[in-house]
């Protein structure tokens, strides 16, 4: 912890960053903090409880535009950062990134390549509860699955916290806000809620880092991250690892399968 504080402090003292996006101790768990000077770096914490995906702030223009940013990034935040680079949303020279190595040490990741290596070499943090729920859902018949998701999504009240918490949802105008024509029912109803989630998930194809922040943010506790998780698996099975093949959503390849099109 001290190491991160010192590294961040040094960056401020050398004038290499304008803000540092990290975690501080919160009410129950660590929460995001924006540090603006060397002194406040002493509030920083960074451990395996720091799971909120901080990459979400890197595309918030009102917070970071024109600024040189330091950031402490969890495993999944790093995956999101890679994807944001691929989508031309970040500039390497404006970022100082720190990850947490396997032995708990702070690791400076100075280039996109270094982050990619880190992700390759680091096992993803386990998600035991998710694995359990996925097993249960996989074992369901399609009718049971429909009933499960209908029940879950009937509770959605369309606050869009799932969207706000996701680093990949950086559009300035989301499809749910386009009203000429209105693509998606803006009011809450089971079918309209499903339309919303299906759209959200489809837009994540090959982009989702599987961080789970969408579902952690959902105040109702709907496990919507399992939808994006499943989508990632489907994309991988059909189009290969997105990091090798470019963006599945925007890259056409003659050998792309079309068998999933109904």
């Amino acid at each position, binding site marked *: 912890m001290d190491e991160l504080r010192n590294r961040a402090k040094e960056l401020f003292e050398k004038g290499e960053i304008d803000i540092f996006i990290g975690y501080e101790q919160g009410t129950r*768990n660590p929460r995001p903090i*924006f540090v603006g000077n060397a002194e406040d770096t002493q509030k920083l914490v960074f451990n395996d409880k720091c799971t909120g995906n901080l990459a979400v702030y890197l595309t918030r223009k009102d917070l970071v535009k024109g600024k040189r940013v330091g950031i402490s990034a969890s495993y999944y935040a790093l995956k999101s950062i890679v994807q944001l680079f691929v989508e031309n949303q970040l500039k390497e020279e404006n970022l100082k990134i720190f990850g947490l190595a396997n032995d708990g040490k702070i690791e400076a990741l100075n280039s996109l390549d270094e982050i990619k290596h880190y992700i390759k070499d680091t096992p993803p943090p386990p998600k035991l509860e998710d694995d359990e729920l996925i097993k249960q859902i996989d074992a369901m018949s399609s009718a049971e699955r429909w009933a499960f998701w209908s029940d879950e999504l009937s509770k959605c009240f369309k606050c869009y916290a799932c969207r*706000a918490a996701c680093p990949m949802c950086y559009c300035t105008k989301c499809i749910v806000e386009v009203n000429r024509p209105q693509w998606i029912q*803006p009011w809450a109803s089971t079918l309209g809620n499903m339309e919303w989630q299906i759209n959200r998930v489809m837009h994540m194809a090959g982009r989702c880092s599987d961080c789970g*922040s969408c579902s952690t943010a959902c105040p109702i506790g709907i496990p919507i991250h399992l939808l994006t998780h499943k989508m990632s698996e489907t994309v991988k099975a059909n189009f290969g690892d997105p990091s090798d093949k470019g963006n599945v959503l925007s890259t056409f390849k003659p050998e792309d399968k079309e068998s999933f099109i109904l």
Partner: protein
Amino acid sequence: MEKKYISHNSLMNWLTKLNDEGSQIYAPVAKGDKTDYKQITSVEEISMDHIQTTQSAKAVAFPRTEKLFSYKKENGDVTLQNFETTSIPETVVFGIHPCDAAGFKPLSGIFNWDTPDLPFNERMKRTTLIAVSCTQCDEFCFCTSVNGSPGNTAGSDILLTPVKDGYLAEIITEKGENLADKHSTFFEADPNINKEEYLAKVPVQFSLEELNKKISNMFESPVWKQQSERCLGCGACAYVCPTCACFDIQEDAHGSSGNRLRCWDACGFSLFTMHTSGHNPREVQSQRWRQRLLHKFSYMPERISVRGCTGCGRCSRACPVDMNIAEHLTEIASL
């Protein structure tokens, strides 16, 4: 106010009877680690182990989607079908905590500020609130900092306080009396006990007086920017809040007929104040966060004489980035 005693069994039998007689009953139902109000068909479904339900009970009077009227165009004539009041059933909300019961007053203030709102008022007329005092709390609760308390009677029609094997029942309003009188045999004599002994101890986190003194003159303060930096503008806080009443009007149009709908909205959303011209008077999140707190603690008290926060702590529990409202208010009160 009349005081009585009701045993746990009698309470359950009373609710069952009310349900059998046609009242719809909303009560806390647990699923996984979340508890929320649901319309129940059997008292077996009720769970009272939670500290706070995820959502407030406001949807009983202010549903997340409300059909205000419908219309039909035929050969140039338009027929309007106004909000249908007769279809609203008698409703009993059981098991809300005092901070939620108190939340209906600010809601009512907003919905009666100018033109009395028909759907809200009609729903409230048919709703009776049976609240249960809190015997436990967590670090997010701060009712005692905003003039509430875990045994506060304000807003409830009946307040039950859990005492040995049963409840002290305080019958507060005429509506409550009518409900209790329907089956008076379930109730017993006033147990004559000191209710305070059974209540949760909720520490006061900030001085309301200091907060009131400061917050109305803080429009230009740098504190809004500093506090709101991590806020994602997601709206979760507003959707779970018992007093937040922002709404959006939508059209559910099907050719020449359709419905006008009122849907929940949130002042934390970037599009909430967007004008058709493209101009947005609340351009950045700090302005929206300021609006949230000033609306609750300055504008509402000044204009409709009721605070827009009952200290339930739901917004803090729901916030994905731990924007702990009590912590922020404490900071403001001590500026």
